[in-house]
């Protein structure tokens, strides 16, 4: 009985966070249709307006509609985090699988290089890359895809190697399955749940990293309404108008929390 209760609780947790995240995703996709104002339109005469029916969350220091900016910001914050995770995990599956099947010298070199790169904290590594590439949204994506890729390909390599000794892999080899068939039919379906959980768990982390870069000024540049960027812009007016930092900050907290909840429910369910 308690088992049933626990399961339904986990299911509820999962469907709740999935639903809210789905709504947020839809809002991001249809943002141009839903925005009451142009998020880039500057109108100095209307700066720092209080929330009203016309401006649901008021306006910022340049008279831009905060609500519209947050809606469009879903695309930059959530969208790019999902993009990063997706590209990183797909590349990592190819790289990890290749290394795990080849073994030998390639594997050895791969592991040493990963060890060296992982010796730096992820943020420092991404900072270094961004410093080399210069600040822009594209470069943030590249830097974060790279850091996630190292971590994921190493993880997938060890997941695959851990399965090498499983009897059903040997049975499949005896049945004549090799290379790609082995990965697609045997390795991949058995590690998929683990991969999904870890990728979902890290989306929150990546959103925070993107926002962090923008906040420092290394990431997304000025007019783009990324949430970290908006927090950064509101920083100068924290005494008079703290809500300018509060709204995008709350948006970040909400999305990250939902993703962490989703990931923990996936983990429990497995």
């Amino acid at each position, binding site marked *: 009985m308690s088992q049933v209760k626990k399961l339904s609780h986990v299911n509820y947790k999962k469907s709740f966070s999935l639903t809210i995240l789905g709504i947020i995703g839809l809002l991001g996709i249809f943002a141009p249709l839903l925005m009451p104002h142009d998020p880039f339109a500057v109108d100095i005469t209307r700066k720092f307006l209080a929330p009203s029916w016309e401006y649901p969350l008021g306006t910022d220091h340049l008279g831009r509609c905060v609500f519209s900016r947050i809606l469009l910001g879903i695309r930059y914050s959530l969208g790019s985090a999902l993009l990063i995770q997706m590209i990183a995990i797909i590349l990592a599956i190819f790289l990890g699988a290749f290394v795990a099947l080849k073994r030998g010298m390639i594997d050895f070199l791969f592991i040493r290089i990963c060890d060296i790169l992982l010796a730096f904290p992820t943020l420092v590594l991404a900072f270094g890359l961004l410093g080399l590439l210069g600040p822009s949204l594209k470069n943030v994506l590249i830097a974060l895809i790279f850091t996630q890729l190292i971590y994921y390909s190493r993880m997938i390599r060890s997941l695959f190697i851990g399965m090498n000794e*499983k*009897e*059903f892999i*040997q*049975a499949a080899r005896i*049945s004549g*399955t090799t290379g790609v068939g082995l990965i697609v*039919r045997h390795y991949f379906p058995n590690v998929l749940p683990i991969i999904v959980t870890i990728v979902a768990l890290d989306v929150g982390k990546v959103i925070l990293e993107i926002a962090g870069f923008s906040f420092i000024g290394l990431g997304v540049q000025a007019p783009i309404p990324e949430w970290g960027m908006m927090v950064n812009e509101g920083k100068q007016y924290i005494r008079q108008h703290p809500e300018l930092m509060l709204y995008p900050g709350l948006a970040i907290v909400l999305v990250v929390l939902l993703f962490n909840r989703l990931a923990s429910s996936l983990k429990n369910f497995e």
Partner: protein
Amino acid sequence: MTLLEVKNIEKYYSQRQFIFRRKHEIPIIQKVSFSLREGECLGIVGQSGSGKSTLGRIILGVERPTNGEVLFQGVNLYEATSKDKKMVRRDLQAVFQNSYDSFNPKQTIFEILEEPLLNFEHYSKIERQHKVMELLDCVELANTIAQKYPAQLSGGQQQRINIARALALNPKLIVLDEAISSLDMILQKHILQLLQTLQKERKLAYIFISHDLQATHFMSDRILVMQHGQLMEEIQKGQTCQHPVSQELYNAILPSHPRGRNKIRY
């Protein structure tokens, strides 16, 4: 005609001690040679840890021997070109002890049985379906099982699926590594009889690795007795064993009835 020839197989596992770099080698198999004719069943018996399973894995090509060679139909397993290897793979199949572990839990029975066909035959989907049904018939399982997952089957059913998979490609030799040890007596007998009928029908050769002497006796034309990685004796069908190690093994068989105590059988 000789199907399989094993020449002077040796296998060592080395333990490297880090500081002095002195290699410490543990012998698992020492100088084992034998050969197998087509359609013959060879039993290999011995205590746990005598190297029977390792020998089986070496014959299958899953593990490399330290020295020696295995010739399957005249092809050296460890120096074969990939084309030769593929041919060997087709004629040399295995049934493992742990039936559930040798299935991918995410595949249905149909997908499991389909796999060797996908790798070697150029069948259409309908032909594959027919073949899978044929295989299920062959091991006396209902067709409805095909859509189930391995976890939904009983141990005996799983083991029969394993045998069906090994039969899918019409191999010439099947290595049965403790294939029936985890089953109950009635199922054991059932599967042994099944294996014997299949052997007669298809001229299969078996290597029957087991610590169960009675089952091995039932199946085999010849029995090799192993201890500490060495061959101690070769017993032909109908002969009695001479070597003390084999005698000890045979004396360890429990009598089926209390009246039989103290009597040495065989």
